[in-house]
C-alpha cells in the first residue's frame, strides 16, 4: 500500500495517532477524576462537590438522533434545534433542586408584562443572571443595588424602621435593602427596626461573594442534595 506513494505511510501513521488520541480523550475525559480539569471554573458557594452530571445531564436522544435533529434544523425541516451531548443548564434545571413555595421573588413572577422595563435592566427571569455558575461566588453582580429596578417608587405604610424607607429611597441608599431583607425570603429571622441593628453592608457584600450567611443559618426550606435529586429523578424515570 505504501509503495504507491511514500506519503501514504505518513498519512496512515497520522491517522492512527489521531484515532488513538481521540480514543484516549473519549475514555479519559468522562472519568470523575477529570471533572476539575474540564470545569469552566470553581463551583459557586453551596455547589462544591457536585458532580458535573448533576447539572449537565445527558441530552435527550442518542448521538445520532441529536446530530440528525440539528442537521434537520439547519436545513429548515425542523423548527427547533435540540441539545447536543448534555442538556442546557437553565432556570428549570436550577429549580429541580431550588424550587421553594415561599420564594419571595420567583423567576416566573417577572414574566408579567409590567416587569418588561425592569428585566431589560436585570433579567430576573433567569437564575444565572445573578448566580452564574463556575465563578466561586454566590452572586456575580458587581453591586447589590438591583432592588431599585422594581421598587424605585416604593411607599411603605406603617413603616416599622427608625429611618423611614421614604428617606432611604430619597437618598438612593439601595445597598441598604439587603441589610434587612433577604431576596428570596427563605431565612427564618426577624428584621431589624433600627438602622444601627441591621446587618453591616460589608457582611452582606462578603455573603454575596460567597462568604458566611449573615442573616441566620435557619432556613425554611433546604435545596435537594445531589443524592435526593438523583433519587427523585430515578423514581420518575421508571
Amino acid at each position: 500500500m505504501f509503495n504507491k506513494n511514500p506519503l501514504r505511510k505518513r498519512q496512515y501513521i497520522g491517522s492512527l495517532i489521531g484515532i488513538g488520541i481521540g480514543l484516549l480523550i473519549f475514555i479519559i475525559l468522562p472519568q470523575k477524576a477529570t471533572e476539575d480539569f474540564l470545569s469552566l471554573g470553581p463551583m459557586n458557594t453551596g455547589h462544591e462537590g457536585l458532580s458535573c452530571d448533576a447539572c449537565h445531564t445527558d441530552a435527550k436522544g442518542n448521538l445520532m438522533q441529536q446530530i440528525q435533529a440539528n442537521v434537520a434544523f439547519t436545513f429548515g425541516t425542523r423548527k427547533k434545534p435540540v441539545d447536543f451531548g448534555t442538556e442546557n443548564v437553565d432556570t428549570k434545571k436550577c429549580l429541580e433542586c431550588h424550587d421553594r413555595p415561599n420564594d419571595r421573588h420567583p423567576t416566573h413572577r417577572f414574566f408579567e408584562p409590567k416587569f418588561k422595563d425592569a428585566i431589560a435592566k436585570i433579567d430576573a427571569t433567569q437564575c444565572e443572571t445573578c448566580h452564574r455558575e463556575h465563578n466561586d461566588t454566590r452572586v456575580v453582580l458587581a453591586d447589590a443595588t438591583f432592588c431599585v429596578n422594581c421598587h424605585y417608587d416604593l411607599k411603605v405604610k406603617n413603616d416599622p424602621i427608625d429611618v423611614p424607607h421614604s428617606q432611604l429611597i430619597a437618598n438612593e441608599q439601595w445597598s441598604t435593602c439587603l441589610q434587612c431583607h433577604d431576596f428570596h425570603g427563605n431565612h427564618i429571622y426577624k428584621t431589624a427596626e433600627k438602622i444601627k441593628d441591621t446587618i453591616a453592608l460589608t457582611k452582606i457584600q462578603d455573603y454575596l461573594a460567597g462568604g458566611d450567611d449573615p442573616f441566620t443559618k435557619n432556613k425554611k426550606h433546604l435545596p435537594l442534595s445531589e443524592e435526593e435529586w438523583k433519587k427523585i429523578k430515578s423514581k420518575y424515570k421508571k
Partner: protein
Amino acid sequence: MKNLKFTKFALVLSLTKILTSCGGSMPEESATEIAINDKAFSVEEVLEMVASENDVTRTLYTKGIVGAGKKQGLKFDEDWQDDEVEAGPLPALFLRGISSDIRKSSVPLGLYLGSDFPINASNKLEGKQAELFKKIKANQKPQFFYDESQKLHTAMFADMAMAAPCVNCHNDHKNTTKKDWKLGDVMGATTWQYPSDSLSYKEAIGVLNAYRNGTKAIYNAYLAEIANFKNSPKPAIGNTWPSKGFNLPTAEVFIDSVRKLTSYKSLEILVKKGVPVASN
C-alpha cells in the same frame, strides 16, 4: 478516476443517509407544536375558559374557606408561609400559588393578578396592563393583546368582588390603598399569557389540567402548613366545610366541588369545538 468519483459520491450519499435516517427521529418537543394541524381553539377561547374556572375557584375559596373559616377562627395572612405565622393563604396568594405551580408544569401558561389599588405594591398594574384595565373597569369585558416583546398572547379578565370577604378584608387591611370597595366592584384583573394563537384539543385540556393541578397544589400546601401548626388549633380535615364547624375539606373534596361547578361550562366549550368523534 471514474471509480474514485463514484466512491466519493457513494460516501457523501451514505453519510447523508446516516445523518438523516439512522437512529430514529427525535420528536419536536414544544407543547405548542403537538398536533400542529389540529388547532381547534383560538387562544382567546381557551384563556376565557380557564379564566372562567379561575373565577369559580377563587369565589369558592374566598367564600367557602376564607370567609366561613374566619368565622370559625381560622386565620389567613399574606405572610402565611413565614415560619412564625400560622395561617392560610389569602385569596390573592392562593392565586399566586396556582400560578407558581402552573410554571412548574410543561404547559407554557402565565397567570398574574393585579389591581389599580393593590394591598401589596408589587401587584399594581402598570403600562399596557394598566391602560387596558381602565377599559375592563368600564365595561368588565376581557381585553386581549399580543405582547410583542415576549411574543406572548395576553388576555386580561376582570377580577370582581364576588364575595363579602373580598370587600371586608381589603377595606379593613392595615395596608389598604382603598377603603370603599363594595360587592360587584372590579377589584383587579387577572392576566393570562400563552405563546401560540391557537391550541389543539390536547393543548386546551393541558391548560385546564395545569390550572386544576395548581389549585390542588396550593390547597395541599395550605393543608401542609396546618399540619405544622404549633400554637394554633388544627381544624379537622375531611369531607366537611368550615360552614359546618371547625373543619376544612381535603384537597380532593375541594377540587371536586370546583369541578362540579366548572365542568359543565368547560365541557360544553370543549365538545362544541373539540375534535369530531368518528362515527361507525
